[in-house]
């Protein structure tokens, strides 16, 4: 390289070390921007990961709680089965909601028993009602001689619908503690429909009542 060229090189390189006005800060920000973008991508990825892990932990916890609840219900059923000698379990499924449907009190049995009112016997009609009717007719004729006497036929009593007693959980629990009463689990909607108590059920309950402990 010639001397003149070396001199030019030296001058121009010295000039490079001089301060210059340019968009230095803007260039630095542009340089940093992709890095910030990368950081924000990492932040989003981390947040998504946290959400996924959190959801998984929550799901696992709920699953564990559910299985624990099933175990507790099963254990409770076993205890109830052992405690109550007449406990009727309709289904082993512990997940179903169960509650004692009915417990019949002795006085209720007495109230429920005479369900159908029998028709009055013909002897009673002949002996007691006839004179009463005749006297009434006589009085009526005396007051209204033009009217014909009316004879009222006795009618059979209408069967009254029985009212089943459905007990709640707290009451059911109280009965469950007592070995003297049995209850059965309600498993389906048909079990919740009101049905009249049949004589055989009343007999069963009455028999339980009389059974010594």
């Amino acid at each position: 390289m010639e001397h003149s060229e070396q001199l030019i090189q030296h001058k121009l390189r010295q000039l490079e070390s001089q301060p210059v006005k340019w968009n230095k800060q803007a260039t630095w920000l542009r340089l940093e921007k992709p890095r910030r973008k990368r950081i924000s991508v990492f932040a989003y990825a981390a947040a998504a990961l946290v959400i996924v892990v959190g959801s998984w932990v929550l799901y696992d916890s709920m699953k564990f709680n559910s299985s624990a609840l099933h175990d507790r219900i099963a254990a409770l059923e076993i205890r109830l089965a052992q405690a109550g000698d007449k406990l009727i379990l309709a289904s082993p499924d512990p997940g179903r909601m169960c509650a004692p449907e009915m417990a019949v009190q002795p006085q209720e049995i007495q109230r429920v028993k005479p369900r159908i009112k029998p028709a009055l016997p013909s002897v009673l009609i002949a002996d007691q009602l006839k004179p009463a009717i005749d006297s009434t007719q006589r009085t009526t004729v005396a007051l209204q001689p033009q009217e014909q006497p009316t004879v009222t036929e006795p009618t059979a009593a209408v069967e009254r619908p029985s009212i089943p007693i459905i007990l709640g959980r707290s009451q059911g629990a109280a009965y469950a503690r007592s070995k003297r009463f049995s209850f059965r689990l309600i498993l389906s909607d048909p079990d919740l429909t009101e049905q009249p108590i049949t004589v055989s059920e009343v007999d069963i309950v009455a028999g339980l009542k009389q059974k010594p402990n």
Partner: protein
Amino acid sequence: MTESELIHLCQQASPRGQQELFDRWADSLYRVALRYVKTDVDAEDIVMMSFTKAFRHITSFRPQGEGSLHAWLRKIVVNESLGWLRRRHNFNMVESLDDTLPVPDLNDVCHLPAEDILRLVMELPAGYRTVFNLHVVEGYSHQEIAEQLGISESTARTQLFKAKAQLKKMLIREGFQYGT
């Protein structure tokens, strides 16, 4: 902060080290880029791309004494500038030069102040200016210039010859007559 500490920080991708490196060398590298591409915006782009490349590859940089980092950064900027020019300018022009012509000397030019020399160089056409910068300022041989620009060595020589002739012509036109 010493250069080795700065290199160490940048190799660990420390934002503080990277900012320090940028603050320390960005001005001079901007001037280097500006000598090749002429416009401010393009020079800023080249500086940005050069630093991006430097931050990415600094782990492979092996320091060889004080000043080696700046030389390495400068080389990156020059290469980026040449890449930018290659995309916009065709250097592969076949030019023949009569070997009997006298080589124009730069004695008149070298006595000018640095700012005037720079202004004259910036007025050269892109091909002349690039070869002049590479040969005179960066110190590349004609063979290296030919490899860098993808041209023949004779084309590189011709370009340099014409650049010098043009500078002399401009100097005469502007009334600078040193040494006469």
